């Protein structure tokens, strides 16, 4: 515990370390930047544990089943902000059965009971019901921030409860949720006296919204900084709203589309020119390119541009992005093509994060000219680029090697070559060498997704070199058990591993069972696992929960199956809460 001698004076003058009051330690801990640092401090001795847990204000539960809600409330009684994540990442792509679990209700109920002073609640990939929202609205008198990301299970009725019940609400942030539209005008339920809103994001809502009510809300909330609209707001109304909220910093335009009319163009242009603080822009732009120049006045100030739902293409798009010289974040569709990325490379030198999404992921005939060339250009000219998500149809080892050499500062590199097993299109070799270059060069890499034709060799490199890697996604890769073994026996910092359609079997899993307890979770689907291995793993590692999903057998009880039965999917995670009791029929805990 000693931090080296402070004073050489005898013990009588200053109180010994262990007699310092808790408040001193609480104050000291408030400077620790990361929860993991606080956790480490708490683990060193009882008094620090006591001080740390009582002063913890923010809690992030990365796996809602790793601990029970009551555990969390008991350990951290003074929490003001909680974030809970539920379903595994692959739920985003339909690989997790719909009724899998991740109900927010137990967390909401425990919070209502144990954290009455709670101010912020954030759920990701969980099932949040209208009841949950009603409880939230009724239980926390100083509730300020509600953030729901990729959740489902609630409707506009629940939103009404939030609007009418949360007097001090600052942020209502709904990102990519499935919200049922009950045709309840929930926006109307914000009282006239309500003016505290800073963030309003309802971009994922499908239904109509009363524009007049929205206008009044925007007008009276003078601190509104983030406004993200849904598709129901037409362009001319957007212009009106902007005039009421010129202080806006982040804007989501919703559906930016209309036939071109000069007067509407001028109206928009004028409205945007009043938004001097606008820094972040997003929206589902089916825009006629003729409207893009209306934004030119804000381009210079933009630091973040999310056009990943925009079907705009062509020279107008490129001209627009080329004016955004201060961009730090750019999300686009592959409609930007290589030539657009070349412009990004030359114009946006402050770029830190680039994501390029596929416009026609299932239609191989719809070819867009986006290749490895675009990524090479951007990596060469954007010195601050550290995070990439790139969907494309072809790649070469040479390109990857060049990218690795250009950008050793990558922290996140996710490459998705759309067709599985695609080799280097020039040499027809696997892309092992390319990805190895990435992990060898990018010493700070924390997240990696690999794709294309890959053998076990790439995993040898990853296991050996990717010391800081925390999350790894693998699909249609590897040739044998060795691949998985390299990963699990290496990758010192690995927290999340998700694998699909790889020829990995029981042996490396069992040989590296202990590793799994150092990780948050492991997902393996369509690999070569058997039930026997799952049983052994569960027996060997009591603090892991081994969930098995067998789709074709439905509710068939595991007990009746032999050890040799193949398993389609396993999801393994460490937990102190024991096996959960809310599994659907096709999910069984071994």
């Amino acid at each position: 515990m000693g931090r080296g001698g402070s004073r050489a004076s005898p013990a009588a003058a200053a109180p010994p370390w262990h007699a310092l009051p808790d408040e001193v330690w609480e104050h000291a801990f408030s400077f620790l930047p990361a929860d993991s640092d606080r956790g480490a401090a708490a683990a060193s001795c009882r008094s620090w544990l006591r001080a740390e847990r009582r002063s913890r204000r923010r809690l992030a539960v990365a796996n809602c089943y790793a601990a029970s809600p009551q555990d969390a409330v008991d350990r951290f009684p003074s929490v003001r902000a909680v974030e809970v994540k539920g379903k595994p990442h692959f739920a985003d792509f339909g690989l997790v059965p719909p009724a899998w679990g991740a109900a927010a209700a137990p967390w909401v109920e425990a919070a209502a009971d144990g954290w009455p002073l709670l101010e912020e609640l954030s759920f990701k990939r969980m099932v949040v019901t209208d009841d949950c929202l009603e409880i939230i609205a009724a239980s926390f008198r100083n509730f300020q921030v509600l953030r729901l990301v990729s959740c489902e299970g609630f409707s506009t009725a629940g939103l009404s409860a939030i609007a009418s019940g949360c007097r001090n609400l600052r942020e209502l942030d709904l990102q990519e949720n499935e919200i049922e539209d009950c045709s309840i005008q929930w926006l109307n339920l914000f009282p006239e006296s309500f003016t505290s809103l800073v963030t309003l994001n309802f971009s994922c809502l499908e239904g109509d919204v009363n524009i007049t009510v929205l206008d009044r809300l925007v007008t009276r909330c003078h601190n509104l900084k983030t406004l993200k609209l849904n598709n129901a707001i037409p362009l001319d109304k957007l212009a009106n709203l902007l005039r009421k909220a010129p202080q806006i910093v982040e804007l989501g335009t919703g559906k930016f589309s209309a036939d071109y009319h000069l007067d509407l163009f001028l109206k928009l242009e004028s409205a945007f020119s009043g938004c001097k603080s606008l820094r972040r822009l997003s929206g589902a732009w089916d825009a006629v390119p003729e409207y893009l120049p209306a934004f030119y006045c804000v381009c210079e100030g933009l630091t973040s541009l999310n056009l990943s739902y925009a079907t705009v293409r062509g020279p107008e798009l490129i001209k627009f992005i080329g004016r955004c010289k201060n961009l730090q974040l750019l999300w686009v569709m592959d409609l930007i093509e290589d030539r657009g990325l070349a412009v990004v490379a030359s114009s946006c030198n402050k770029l830190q994060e680039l994501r390029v999404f596929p416009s026609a992921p299932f239609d191989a005939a719809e070819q867009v000219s986006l290749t490895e060339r675009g990524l090479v250009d951007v990596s060469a000219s954007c010195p601050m680029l550290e995070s990439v998500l790139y969907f494309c149809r072809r790649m070469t080892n040479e390109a990857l090697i060049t990218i690795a050499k250009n950008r050793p500062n990558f922290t996140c590199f996710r490459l998705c070559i759309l067709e599985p097993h695609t080799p280097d299109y020039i040499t027809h070799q696997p892309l092992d060498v390319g990805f190895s270059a990435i992990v060898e060069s990018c010493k700070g890499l924390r997240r990696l997704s690999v794709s294309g034709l890959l053998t076990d060799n790439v995993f040898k490199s990853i296991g050996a070199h990717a010391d800081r890697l925390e999350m790894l996604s693998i699909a249609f890769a590897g040739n044998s058990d060795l691949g998985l073994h390299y990963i699990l026996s290496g990758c010192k910092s690995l927290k999340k591993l998700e694998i699909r359609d790889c020829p990995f079997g029981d042996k490396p899993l069992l040989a590296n069972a202990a590793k799994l307890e150092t990780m948050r979770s492991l997902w393996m689907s369509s690999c070569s696992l058997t039930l026997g291995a799952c049983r052994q793993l569960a027996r060997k590692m009591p603090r892991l929960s081994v969930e098995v999903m067998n789709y074709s057998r439905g509710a068939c009880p595991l007990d009746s199956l032999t050890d040799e039965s193949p398993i389609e999917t396993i999801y393994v995670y460490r937990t102190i809460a024991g096996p959960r009791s809310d599994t659907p029929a096709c999910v069984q805990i071994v």
Partner: protein
Amino acid sequence: MEIDADNLSATELRLGLPGTSSGDDGCWQKKPSQPGVGGTKRALDDTRSEASGTSPAAAAAAGDDDHDATAPAKAQVVGWPPVRAYRKNTFQAAAAAAKKAEPPQQQGGGGGLYVKVSMDGAPYLRKVDLRMYKGYRELRDALDALFTKSSAGAAADGGDQQQHAVAYEDKDGDLMLVGDVPWDMFVSSCKKLRIMKGSEAR
């Protein structure tokens, strides 16, 4: 838990290729009752899971008409490429809306969309069917093929081809450069094509 036999098989998400037998996919079928969720939510979920196209069966059932290739040559693998269902929904919806928004103003109703093509210096005009092409590249290739023979004299120095700009007259009568707007929008608004010499086009 009971498995509701009335559940439609079209809402099943499967790992298998289309046409393989389903087996007892109990867990993938929507359960009739779920704590805290009303009956209407079920129906909505079913349509959503159909529209998200994460399974071959569901995609066919939803009748995707926004891709020209409604029955792709390869079977779709569930959950690949790793694109969020939310993203797929919105892009497909946008593409579908764009197609539906095309005003049915084509000449010769229903089938082809023939427009005149004039080239500066060429003795006579041609006609092309815009619906024959999937995009600008194909159109350009076709125009090259149509006009290389007649302008053989003018294109003596080989590099001349690239200096031609293709413009079109839209429904407002304005002369526009081909290539700015999405293809579908171009097809619906193009009335005439004109191939101009490079010097004029700038």
